[in-house]
């Protein structure tokens, strides 16, 4: 699917100290800022109406009832009906039967629901499903399959990096992100930082770190 409603346009070129030509004006950040207030004060009723219509054009609303959306999950388009309050985690587990990501705290405080949104780790319990439309969602199921495992999944098996397994899908997604970011140069400190937001009550962390490093080195 092509992105019809990008969540936001790419940021203007980032100015670096050596790149004075691309500096962005302070006032130019949000185009049209202040225009509504000016219009209310200065324009006649007709213009105000036109302005209101323009503002209406600038807003889209969803819900509170069911909204049909198309999610792109693990490279596949999936149509689902969700309420705006449905989290991405609920949509994945309850509507799409992708139960890899786990609901544990549902408060951004454990990491069991870690997935990738546009290639970056996020907690699916704090993302709304409607926000994920038009973006790429990757879950542990999309990383690899039992017969064709991602190097991190294979390394988790080789290093015995799980016990009860509840934190494992999140751990795998966090480690795979670190491997993607740092490649074979991944250090133990970087791996440690990468899983800082993934709690394990069974105490698998030492094995998880070994698995991440093994996967990074391509062993």
């Amino acid at each position, binding site marked *: 699917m092509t992105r019809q409603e990008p969540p936001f346009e790419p940021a203007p070129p980032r100015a670096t*100290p050596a790149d004075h030509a691309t500096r962005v004006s302070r006032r130019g950040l*949000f185009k049209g800022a202040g225009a509504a207030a000016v219009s209310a004060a200065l324009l006649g009723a007709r213009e105000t109406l036109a302005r209101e219509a323009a503002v209406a054009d600038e807003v889209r609303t969803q819900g509170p009832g069911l909204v049909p959306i198309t999610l792109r999950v693990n490279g596949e388009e999936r149509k689902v009906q969700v309420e705006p309050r449905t989290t991405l985690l609920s949509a994945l587990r309850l509507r799409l039967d992708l139960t890899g990501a786990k609901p544990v705290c549902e408060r951004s405080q454990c990491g069991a629901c870690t997935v990738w949104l546009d290639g970056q*780790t996020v907690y699916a319990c704090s993302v709304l499903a*409607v926000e994920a439309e038009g973006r790429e969602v990757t879950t542990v199921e999309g990383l690899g399959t039992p017969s064709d495992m991602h190097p991190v999944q294979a390394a988790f098996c080789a290093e015995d990096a799980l016990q009860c397994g509840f934190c494992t899908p999140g751990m795998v997604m966090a480690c795979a992100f670190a491997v993607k970011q740092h490649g074979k140069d991944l250090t133990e400190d970087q791996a440690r930082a990468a899983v800082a*937001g993934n709690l394990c009550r069974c105490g698998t962390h030492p094995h998880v770190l070994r698995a991440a490093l093994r996967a990074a080195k391509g062993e």
Partner: protein
Amino acid sequence: MKAFTFVRPRTVDAAVAALAETGGAVHAGGVDLLDRMKEHVDEPSHLVTLLDVPGRDAIALEDDGGVHLGAGVTLAALAENDVVRRFLPSLAEAAGQAASPAIRHRATLGGNLAQRTRCGYFRIASFSCLKRGADACPVRAETGVQETAAVFANEPCASAHPSSLAPVLQSLGAQLGVQGPKGARSVSLAEAWRAPEKGVAGDLALAADELITAIVVPPRTRPQRVGYEEVRQKAAFDWALVSCGVRVELDDDGRVSDASIVLGSVAPTPWVATAAEAALRGKAFGAEPIAAAAKAATQGATPLSGNTYKVRLVEVAVRRALTRALEGAKGGAR
């Protein structure tokens, strides 16, 4: 979570208009807001999201040397962006230590400054809380859970302000860009807070239909050093127990001409350690005045019986942050 309408404006004007019209809540990364909604502490009928507003995540070096940060910049971007790392190193450091990687990918700067206190009485609907309309703050009661509560200005409410970025930005003299129905205004972060009041949940003095659009750090006018330190219970994935951002201006003889020392998580809003600042002014910047300033930072503390240890942490955090500023001669150029 109660059902709500998701309103997706594409401009700041439309967002402000939608807030005024619906009485809804601003949604950015949702890390803080959705938590409160899941606990039924907040039950807005509409969420007005900023996610579709272009340019919300811009970071730019201004012509005058100031740095402009869009309200939608993520904590991950603050930690990694070259402009922030080079010109606002204490901010990059604070952002890189906050929460966890997955949260930093989502959490925005605007949401971080406007996040509500972590006080358990505030966050759990079945408890009573002054900020949610009760007559008294249960933290202050003899039976109150007080460990992480405020040790300064903790009457009538002992909630601690959770942001570890706010003290750094305030030490750097940051300005908030705010947009409302009457237009845009700019307010210094130092003057943007309001003390707790019965029934007022937010700690920023913003109207319900006002938005933070940007945070601007002004250019430095003289040589200065900056530093950031925090003390936390866990090494990561938690809020700080005490955080501290400092900025020290030096004259040609290496004497302190001005100092800004701001603490987080010790008062209901970011706390300016004025006695510590005074203890540094006019002194040759070094270990002795730093120790004196750190001690002075505890002046006026009114700890509760359950959190006297936090006063000691204030001293430690201020000493460490100032020592970082002293050592970071080159790194802390701005």
